[in-house]
């Protein structure tokens, strides 16, 4: 695997006349927790979908795990786990049935399916609720189960699109603990959020606004260079400057 898990250069995505992603470039190195911050409509989900091979880029280049997302989407898919912004497990299947189903479609080897299932159940804290209908789970458990199902096939690169939105603060904290564990195990985690406090948990962040990256770097570094006390201040100052520039 190459040095960088993700490499994006001059990426553009247009829907009709609208530039959802407008000339974006960045890199994510292996083992890194890379945060993607920005308000709703900034273009975070669109960028992530392109990186997962779900949308084709209008222009520019993106490589994930060394594979070109436009031409080698299937190889890309073998190397990634993706948790979409919408909860995307089957509500009308039991917890265990969801795990078994995704194990099957990801082609997890039969010998290790049981071990993987136990790992996911434990990780999500659902060992005693394996037979429950997924629809009965509270938000935090649902999100952890969705994360578990996205990593059944042990992908080295993870794309998590606003995994903590609509979840209570304690469950958010627990979820971030899991992200740390995964990163420590050598995985690359690409996570989007619109919670400012979560920016501090990331190794590096990209601040996205109206399809463009308006700040990129480690949180501490960004605060220092702009001489501002919090990420929220960094964000506001960058957006104000962007507004002035385009006005």
């Amino acid at each position, binding site marked *: 695997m190459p040095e960088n898990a993700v490499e994006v250069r001059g990426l553009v995505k247009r829907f009709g006349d609208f530039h959802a992603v407008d000339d974006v470039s960045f890199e994510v190195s292996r083992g890194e927790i890379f945060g993607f911050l920005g308000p709703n409509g900034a273009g975070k989900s669109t960028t992530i979908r392109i990186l997962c091979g779900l949308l084709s880029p209008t222009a520019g280049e993106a490589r994930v795990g060394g594979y070109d997302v436009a031409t080698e989407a299937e190889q890309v898919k073998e190397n990634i786990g993706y948790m979409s912004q919408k909860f995307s497990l089957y509500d009308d299947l039991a917890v265990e049935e969801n795990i078994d189903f995704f194990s099957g479609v990801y*082609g997890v080897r039969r010998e290790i399916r049981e071990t993987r299932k136990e790992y996911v159940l434990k990780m999500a804290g659902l060992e005693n609720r394996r037979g429950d209908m997924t629809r009965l789970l509270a938000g935090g458990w649902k999100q952890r189960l969705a994360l578990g199902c996205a990593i059944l096939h042990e992908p080295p690169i993870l794309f998590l699109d606003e995994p903590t939105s609509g979840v209570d603060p304690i469950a958010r904290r627990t979820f971030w603990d899991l992200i740390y564990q995964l990163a420590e195990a050598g995985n690359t985690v690409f996570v989007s959020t619109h919670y400012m406090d979560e920016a501090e948990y990331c190794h590096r962040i990209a601040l996205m606004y109206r399809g463009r990256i308006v700040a990129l770097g480690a949180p501490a570094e960004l605060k220092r260079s702009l001489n501002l006390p919090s990420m929220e201040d960094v964000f506001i100052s960058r957006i104000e400057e962007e507004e002035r520039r385009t006005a």
Partner: protein
Amino acid sequence: MRSRIREIVVKELRQALREPRMRALLFFPPVLQLVIFGFAVNLDVNNARIAWFDGDRTPASRELRERFEGSGYFTVLAMPRRDREVRDLLDHGDVQAVVQILPGFARDVDRGRASVQVLVDGTNSNTASLIASYANQIVTSFSQRATQARLDRKLGTSVPTNILPVNTASRVWFNPELRSRTYFVPGVIVNIVMLVTVMLTAMAIVREKEIGTMEQLMVTPIRPVELIIGKTVPFAGIGVVNMIMITLAALLVFQIPFRGSALLLLASTLLFLLTTLGLGLFISTVSHTQQQAMMSTFFLFLPALMLSGFAFPIQNMPAPVQWLTYLIPARYFMEIVRGIFLKGTGFAVLWPAMLALAVLGTVILSLSVMRFHKRLD
């Protein structure tokens, strides 16, 4: 590859059989249609209500009335005496037909050229033509008897009827009692298999788009063809189960004859399923919500039903519409199903219809598969 398909099939069946709404969708339409077309819709004429206007009032005219009443097809409800009353009875729908015997009927019978007038309420053209033809049969046989009696009297001996100059009696094959249920119930197979499989396939795929799981499936290594097979095979199975259920109901509950080969019926059902699953898949590629999928299904289902020959015979349609029916898979399957049930038609006769289904199925299915991508745009 096979295990991934099985994984989807199992999941699909689990979901379909677990959800009460889906379960209802599986079993409610067949039962409802069987009840409607097996019991409720009755286009047969039994005890048609008629009025009897006797302008002759002779033994001959009375005898004819007894024939009508004794036939089991007619009940004489009124004996109007004036033209006005006749009009009122028909206008109010009190009777479905009026038989008018003109003065001089008995004399004409003796001369061998008797006739009666039958005024039929044509509001329901199907019933009207049946009533007219039954009345005609009774009058014809009555006048034949009278002719024979006259000949007997003249010659003083009994003359065999077969020397009579004209015999216009017609015989109906395959469905001798002209029971509408015999005609409709096998057709229910076509309707139900079409409705259920198109709708379930379209809904199952669109639901995943709507709730977002499709996006999740698209990042797995699953191939489009595996996804398509996994998503259609369960509903093909349900279609076959429906077909068997309706066939059994036809045989056991409605005593419809089954004169042909069960294997041929199964083979034709599978060919028909190619077209309906293809159509369901196609609808799913053009719909974003389950509601759109449902609307599109009905939008396509109703004309297909009309043009399939289920209720309206295709040969009575205008020529351009008849050509159009060649594009409707249900038309061929209807022909096959009725052929197998009622006539015992075999492969030698049905193969062109089966070939048509195979061709249409392949075309629809490949077009839909081509439209089905593992990308969101």
